[in-house]
């Protein structure tokens, strides 16, 4: 099966390991993620002001590119891209006045009415592939690995675009279980890491990541499964400077859920791109006998 795929900027530069592991893992499940032949930045964040329509244009252009391919569904890996594309589509679908203004502005594009569905890869795994089929593809179960699913914000909020329960999601834990791992629940699963505040205030991000990692450790986890490149960056980059509010807050590996899929499926380790994760992550994987 072929699915239209929108990568977004960060997956082509600083989160290549997310993309390479996802493409390989999906291929192993018989799904080809076919990158759109032409795409642009989604705008990263959805504009929250009523009169700010210009910032929806970048996202809508991408949705028109999907339609041009004769597709009505596009898959994203990046949680921010998912949110921005999905929310921009809701504007085009549900707000006639805004849709009219945006369509008139983009006079070089065909009119768009919100026909393209944006799906996050986790939704494809749950709804189109199914946990059983994923479990059936596992060659090396992630047994003895205690992992928390860390969702962050943009997959779950607002309610209108949530891929799972806003307050008590299970989709990441369900995947981890299908991969043979032990999914650990923890109270910070849907807490914000501080996101873009990293450009201005590294100390605040450090406070946040220390709280998140501390909570994960307290819950008995050894690693986090993530789906957002900004969460991954913030968790990785602040770990070395983590001010440990309680003693014993460990450094904890954060891996993309697709890297864990590739590991469990027994794929060529090169697709995982572990060299882009932290040295501590590689040490942990080695210690667990997952990489040499």
């Amino acid at each position, binding site marked *: 099966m072929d699915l239209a795929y929108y990568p*977004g*900027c*960060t997956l082509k*530069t*600083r*989160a290549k390991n997310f993309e390479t592991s996802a493409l390989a893992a999906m291929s192993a499940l018989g799904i080809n993620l076919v990158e759109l032949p032409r795409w642009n*930045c989604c*705008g*990263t*964040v959805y*504009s*929250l*002001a*009523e*009169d*700010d329509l210009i*910032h929806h244009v970048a996202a809508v252009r991408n949705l028109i590119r999907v339609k041009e391919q004769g597709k009505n569904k596009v898959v994203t890996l*990046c949680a*921010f891209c998912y949110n921005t594309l999905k929310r921009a589509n809701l504007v085009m679908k549900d707000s006639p006045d805004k849709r009219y203004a945006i369509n008139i502005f983009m006079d070089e594009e065909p009119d768009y009415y919100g026909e393209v569905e944006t799906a996050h890869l986790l939704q494809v795994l749950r709804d189109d592939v199914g946990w059983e089929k994923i479990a059936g593809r596992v060659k090396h179960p992630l047994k003895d690995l205690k992992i928390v699913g860390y969702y962050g*914000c943009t997959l*779950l*909020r*607002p*309610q209108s675009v949530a891929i799972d329960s*806003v*307050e008590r999601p299970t989709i990441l834990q369900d995947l981890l279980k299908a991969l043979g791992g032990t999914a650990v629940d923890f109270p910070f699963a*849907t*807490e*914000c890491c*501080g*996101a*873009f*505040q*990293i*450009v*201005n*205030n590294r100390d*605040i991000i450090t*406070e*946040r990541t220390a709280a998140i990692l501390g909570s994960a450790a307290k819950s008995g986890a050894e690693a986090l499964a993530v789906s957002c*490149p*900004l969460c991954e*960056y913030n968790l990785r*980059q602040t770990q070395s400077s983590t001010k440990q509010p309680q003693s014993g807050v460990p450094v904890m590996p954060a891996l993309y859920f697709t890297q864990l899929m590739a590991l469990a499926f027994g794929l060529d380790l090169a697709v995982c791109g572990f060299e882009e994760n932290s040295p501590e992550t590689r040490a942990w994987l080695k210690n667990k006998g997952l990489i040499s």
Partner: protein
Amino acid sequence: MRVELSSKRLRSDFVKKIAELSGQNLYLCYQCGKCSAGCPMGFAMDILPNQIMRLVQLGLEEDIANSKTVWLCASCLTCTVRCPRGVDLSRVMEALRLLTLRKNKNYVEPSKMPPETVADLPQIALVSGFRKLTS
């Protein structure tokens, strides 16, 4: 905190602008504090989100302008999904930021960021950060 109320402030352009930009009925807020209780940035804020809502209702523009709160909001939308009155507080915060940013004032100066920080940050951080904190 001593607060001076006046009908002039309550009906000021400031209150109208925030209502219009955010698309929210500001008077729905009844100060339950749920937004502040769940705010991941609350620990660093000088004025809590529910207090911002009250100040907006009362038209106390200067108190908000003197606070760092709207610049610490990470638009995580935790308050939005939890508000029992259905107020999308993230939109109120955005409207308050835009009052400054649309006067061509940056909260973060990209040119003053250390080059090594800029080089290290992924696009997802830079683009979202500049979208939220620069004009």
